[in-house]
């Protein structure tokens, strides 16, 4: 059974009326790390909140481990660990430990298992030294880690993580990445909403690109990059090429477009091996070639191309 199934999910908010999710369909397998990429306002957080039963869908069906998020919300809640990244989500005057103890108890965890679990997680996240500090005295990074600790407390099979590394320093980011990898190695499913393309590429088995509520593309990062098959050949030249020469290059079979910027010529092609020699030869006939680079499309290129429409 799939960990998460989303079937034509639409969410419309009223006052003002806005379409936040537009007939989204998606399936996530158990043990998969799925990255949800999208610009601000794309609908990532709303999608996560619907999965967490905190927002009701307008139409469509959503299942978590086979349970309907609208009709079987209590069963769904037991299966998920949510991280929202909001700093204001703990009791400011309780310590980190007391906060975790409170939320753990609410999740039905009993002593002494709860205490053991808290100690273990705080240690894993490097927060043990700060466990008796009031939450309001925590730094931003510590607050985020405590949020992650709360999601991990009940050891649920599915994690919904909304930008878990934003505003973390590189060391903490690496630690969080390691924890996400460990979750996968323990067979947990992770839905990771992020802006960070590098993070998505590093961690996720598959990536979905969400823009203005529409899920534009879902695939592995490798396939997403290959989808456009547009390699850039970047040539640094001494003098501008004549219009005739540019027309010649544009006309080569396999060349999709040319961009000229001062002394830089970018040739986009789906078949670099076939056109590279001819491009070099042709450019060389008119001007000196100072440098040449062949650049495969990055996930960022794919993301920008897709979200720019």
């Amino acid at each position: 059974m799939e960990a998460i199934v989303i079937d034509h999910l639409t969410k419309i908010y009223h006052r003002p009326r806005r379409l936040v999710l537009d007939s989204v369909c998606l399936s996530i397998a158990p043990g998969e790390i799925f990255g949800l990429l999208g610009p601000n306002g794309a609908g990532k957080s709303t999608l996560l909140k619907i999965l967490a039963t905190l927002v009701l869908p307008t139409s469509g069906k959503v299942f978590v481990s086979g349970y309907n998020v609208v009709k079987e919300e209590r069963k769904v809640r037991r299966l998920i660990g949510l991280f929202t990244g909001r700093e204001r989500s703990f009791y400011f005057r309780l310590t980190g430990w007391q906060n975790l103890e409170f939320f753990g108890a609410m999740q039905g965890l009993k002593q002494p298992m709860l205490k053991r679990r808290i100690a273990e997680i705080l240690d894993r996240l490097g927060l043990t030294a700060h466990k008796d500090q009031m939450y309001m005295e925590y730094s931003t990074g510590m607050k985020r880690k405590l949020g992650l600790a709360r999601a991990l407390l009940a050891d649920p099979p599915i994690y919904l993580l909304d930008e878990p590394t934003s505003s973390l320093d590189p060391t903490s980011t690496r630690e969080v990445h390691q924890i996400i990898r460990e979750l996968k190695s323990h067979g947990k499913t992770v839905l990771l909403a992020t802006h960070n393309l590098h993070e998505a590429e590093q961690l996720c088995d598959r990536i979905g690109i969400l823009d203005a509520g529409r899920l534009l593309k879902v695939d592995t990062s490798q396939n997403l990059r290959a989808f456009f098959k547009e390699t850039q050949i970047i040539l640094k030249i001494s003098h501008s090429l004549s219009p005739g020469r540019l027309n010649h290059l544009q006309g080569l079979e396999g060349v999709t477009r040319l961009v000229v910027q001062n002394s830089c010529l970018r040739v986009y092609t789906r078949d670099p091996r076939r056109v590279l020699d001819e491009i070099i030869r042709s450019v060389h006939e008119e001007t000196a070639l100072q440098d040449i680079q062949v650049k495969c499309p990055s996930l960022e290129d794919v993301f920008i191309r897709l979200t720019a429409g």
Partner: protein
Amino acid sequence: MYKVWQFMKRGFISMLSYRTAFMLGVVSMAVGVAQFAYMAIFLKEGNTFPGIARYGGDLMAFLISGNLFMSFIAVALSSFQGAIRSEQLMGTLEFLLLSDTPLGLILLYSSLWDFLWTLINAGLIFTLVVLIFGVPLQINLGPALLVLSLAIICLAGVGLASAGIIMVTKVGDPIAWAFSTLSGFLSGVIFPVEILPNWLQKISAILPPTYALSALRKSLLVGSSLLDIQQELLVLALMALVTVPAGLLAFRWGFNKARRDGTLVGY
């Protein structure tokens, strides 16, 4: 001067943005004036106060019991919505909802301390009043606690509805406001219900605190037994049968509306 204007403007815009709270505030002022007017009519009765004879006739005992009971009304009506509001402000509501504990229980647990604290306060004040002012009391504790419990259950139903409304309006809830204002005015808290005009007495007759306060005063001030207050108890029980399910329904409605609107954590 421009800075002062900016503060005034900010206050006015914020106040207007909470429209329900704004309207309720205006009406509260009008009700407050009426309340004092009827209190004055009551005091014109002179030194004998025949209207409170059935509660022992002591004005201080009458007023103090009314005042202390109002603190229970306030807790029953506001503790649930207070708990919701507080969790919204802390940003913790979503995570409590996600926990294995049903929201209704979370509200109940959050309110227990308020009820306990009010009970301790009320007990202390009563003891002090008796010791310092020598107010005559004939306490029949069993019936008094039963009345108080029934009244709290009955009003907790209204409190639940109020918590549902506060999830939608965020600030300003007409249900708790109406119950609290009308109870303070019409349930015999600071003057007997009988001095009110007939049409206001009809409204008083549908308010649970009217019966609760009458029965509580009888059991605390003149030592009435369960049998003596059975009529009030029956009315309170019947009212609880209506308010609790209605409160649960209203709460569920508010909760789902906030989830539909995506405003669960808004405040």
